[in-house]
């Protein structure tokens, strides 16, 4: 059984991080270059981490499966990044951002981590502006803000509708600087396929060069995973097609605990599915909810009509009706479930009746078409490209889609997993968002972890490792892990099956969406727990992977990733089944208040569930970390 020591420092909430930084061990400057750190991933979390560790003097090797670090999925984030700057003088503070995040997460995150996140949020904006991120400005030249769901202050910084792109390019520029200076060694198109443990500590990885097919062994003093989220287990999602779970899943199979895998976020505003061939769902940023109003017809009979012909009196602005104080800006999980409910009632719109309107006519009256274009122009363009409709003329149609995974590898306050020497940053860890993430907080967390947390906390671990004690990549542990990887590839290529990998990915996605999506039931989850292992068996018996292992082979890459999703999906359903309560993005129909809101069970489930691998086809062990709320009272979330 794994020991889960959160290592949260004692003392008042607001002093913990400062005190911890003063207490933890340091590595002296002359010794830093004797340590080698592997960073897997170069999204916001990975690139900021790699650049900063290199600036501190560590030797860094950075691995990405993309052809360039600039392509990481962080690039796609649209809306913005939160920070408690209080530049608007509207009552924001570190405490308020902390509190909003804890409450938004439905009291399932760790207080001390969240407070630290809110504290360093202010440094992030400074750092990004210094690296040349062209944030939106007011006419006086100062930074502009917008508001986002789950908050009553304006604390979101943005760069048009391309905030993730600009933040990532900022972090990428710092990483590029380090690569140019020779302090980071970049391995692009290099996919981590196994984690290597030596003496119970993370000391290296096995990778496949995706161009040459070469399997490589890399040793280091510590390993950092910043490999993003696993939402593509649903097949259809707002994630980039390449996003996957492989790095953290294989680490899980080496003993790292996987915490709260069932906490997934369904984003309320995405473009609805149009057909079977669909490969991805496109998000329409939540920032649209600042100015767009969500509605469906009051009467089912109106659903097929031209929306502009439906009179005001026959429209149901259901979020404004149900949540008068937060209205269209209520948190994502609440907005998504409300959309599902009105569609279940038969009031959905569009060809599939799985859609609701997001209407800008009021905003256009108020701000003019150009005012709206200035704020959201690129989003309206995307919408037009995909649907061939103009949202300036007719309301957008939107529907919820899988968007983010709050679960991930368990980490302590130092962002270290239960495997010593294995650190996990960004969306890949479970740490800061509890059961639901607020908008504009993932970018904040990625950069907080990479620029401002890991540079301190990794030193505490490395200081306990003798310089030069790094094992050789020729040791038996490395060779064993390498054999593991090559055996899997051999097995795929030798299979004389019939169906392409995508066939299984689609089927898994359907099971997950139906049984482990927006609303879950005991019965449904039990069904999924029957269906997924059967599908996995079929996959291994009948999948077809053409080509060879010695060249670029996208089918082979995909096969490995989907094999992992087929295992992860089962764990997610198991976690959802065991968590007999509703909280945030995890909604169990059996556990709801009469008005349809989540009914938490703090006495029995006020904890993080960290699953521990026990071997193939064995039921994993469920460890718990109790969440002790010392400073905030766990209460019922209320956005009414």
């Amino acid at each position: 059984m794994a020991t889960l020591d959160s290592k949260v420092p004692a003392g008042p909430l607001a002093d913990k991080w400062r005190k911890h930084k003063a207490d933890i061990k340091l590595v002296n400057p002359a010794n830093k270059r004797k340590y080698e750190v592997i960073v897997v991933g170069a999204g916001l979390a990975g690139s900021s981490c790699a650049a900063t560790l290199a600036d501190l003097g560590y030797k860094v090797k950075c691995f990405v499966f993309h052809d360039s670090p600039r392509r990481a999925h962080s690039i796609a984030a649209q809306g913005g990044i939160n920070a408690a700057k209080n530049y608007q003088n509207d009552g924001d503070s570190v405490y308020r951002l902390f509190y909003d995040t804890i409450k938004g997460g439905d009291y399932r995150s760790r207080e001390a981590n969240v407070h630290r996140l809110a504290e360093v949020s202010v440094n992030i904006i400074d750092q990004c502006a210094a690296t040349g991120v062209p944030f939106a400005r007011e006419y006086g030249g100062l930074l502009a803000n917008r508001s986002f769901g789950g908050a009553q202050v304006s604390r979101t910084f943005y760069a048009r509708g391309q905030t993730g792109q600009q933040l990532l390019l900022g972090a990428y520029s710092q990483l590029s600087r380090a690569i140019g200076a020779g302090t980071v060694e970049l391995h692009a198109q290099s996919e981590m396929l196994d984690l290597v443990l030596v003496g119970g500590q993370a000391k290296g990885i096995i990778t496949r060069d995706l161009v040459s097919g070469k399997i490589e062994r890399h040793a280091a003093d510590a390993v950092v995973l910043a490999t993003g989220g696993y939402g593509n287990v649903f097949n259809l999602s707002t994630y980039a097609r390449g996003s996957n779970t492989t790095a953290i899943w294989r680490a899980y199979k080496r003993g790292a605990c996987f915490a709260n895998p069932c906490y997934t976020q369904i984003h309320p505003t995405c473009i609805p599915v149009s057909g079977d061939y669909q490969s991805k769902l496109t998000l329409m940023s939540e920032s649209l909810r600042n100015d767009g109003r969500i509605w469906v017809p009051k009467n089912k009979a109106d659903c097929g009509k031209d929306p502009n012909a439906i009179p005001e009196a026959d429209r149901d602005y259901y979020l404004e009706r149900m949540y008068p104080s937060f209205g269209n800006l209520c948190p994502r999980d609440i907005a998504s479930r409300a959309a599902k409910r009105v569609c279940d009632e038969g009031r959905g719109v569009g060809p599939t009746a799985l859609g609701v309107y997001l209407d800008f006519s009021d905003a256009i009256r108020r701000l003019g078409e150009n005012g709206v274009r200035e704020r959201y122009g690129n989003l309206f363009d995307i919408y037009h490209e995909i649907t061939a409709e103009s949202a300036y003329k007719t309301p957008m149609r939107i529907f919820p889609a899988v968007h983010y995974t709050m679960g991930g590898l368990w980490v302590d306050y130092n962002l270290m997993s239960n495997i010593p020497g294995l650190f996990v940053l960004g969306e890949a860890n479970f740490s800061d968002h509890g059961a639901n993430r607020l908008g504009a907080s993932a970018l904040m967390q990625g950069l907080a972890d990479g620029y401002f947390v890991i540079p301190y906390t990794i030193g505490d671990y490395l200081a306990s490792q003798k310089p030069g004690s790094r094992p050789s990549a020729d040791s038996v542990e490395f060779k064993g892990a390498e054999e593991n990887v090559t055996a899997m590839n051999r097995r795929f290529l030798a299979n004389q099956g019939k169906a392409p990998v995508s066939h299984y990915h689609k089927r898994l996605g359907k099971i997950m969406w139906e049984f482990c999506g927006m609303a879950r039931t005991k019965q449904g989850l039990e069904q999924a727990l029957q269906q997924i292992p059967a599908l996995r068996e079929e996959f291994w018996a009948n999948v077809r992977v053409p080509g060879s292992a010695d060249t670029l082979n996208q089918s082979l890459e995909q096969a490995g990733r989907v094999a992992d999703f087929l295992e992860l999906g089962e764990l997610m359903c198991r976690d959802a089944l065991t968590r007999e309560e509703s909280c945030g993005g995890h909604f169990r129909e059996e556990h709801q208040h009469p008005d349809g809101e989540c009914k938490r069970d703090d006495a029995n489930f006020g904890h993080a569930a960290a699953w521990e691998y026990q071997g193939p086809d064995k039921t994993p062990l469920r460890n718990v970390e109790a969440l002790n709320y010392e400073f905030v009272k766990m209460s019922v979330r209320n956005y009414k």
Partner: protein
Amino acid sequence: MVAAQTSSQPFSITLRVWRQAGPKQPGKFVDYRSANLSPNMSFLEMLDVVNDELTAKGEEPIAFAHDCREGICGTCSCTINGKPHGPGRGVATCQVYMRSFRDGDVVTVEPFRAEAFPIVKDLITDRSAFDRIQQAGGFITARAGSAPDANAIPVPKPDADLAMDAATCIGCGACVAACKNASAMLFVAAKVSHLGLLPQGQAERDKRVLAMVQTMDELGFGNCTNQYECSAACPKLISHDFIARMNRDYFKASLRASFRPESIGASGGAG
């Protein structure tokens, strides 16, 4: 976007695709029929379906680069009917929809062609030259922990907006593929302008433009002869005015570098 296919009836096209097993192998066009298409399907989704059919027959699917499928990561990179990123203006390959084609069309698909972007396989090229240009100077040196308060340095809104226009570059390489000289001027100009327009970018302004242009030249990109095919092919429609801007910057930086007395130049000021 041109809407050629107006009815929602399923239709078919013939795909003429560049197949090349590896960097050193010869390549050739191969025809595939793609049937049952819906106008709302994306071009890449059409390729997915063709690939699944090939796989089911035990043949190797067409390798093509893609990731975000929403026009922001810059991974996708097909030349469709001779145009980088295909029909339409201001879109990447992944934002092309089948409604742009007609029943019975023959659609040619090939990789971005440029000497500095060698073909890796089928429709995939190696664009790491762009990363190397960035590494040479496409940054503002700012170690974490050393930044002043973000509002301490106001940036006039017009400057910030113009910097943002340049910064929207997705690094796809369409500008290079569209240019008859395979020049990377638009890509480099966009980065030089983005950082050079901001007060934070001034300290390294000269050094940046000199280093990035030099690296661009070394990597085998061609010269700019002001045809501006680059801007027309750019999925973000980045203006070629930035090229003129960079030329001015480059000229001034070269002058300053050459007038710098030895003793100061040697301390690294002018780069």
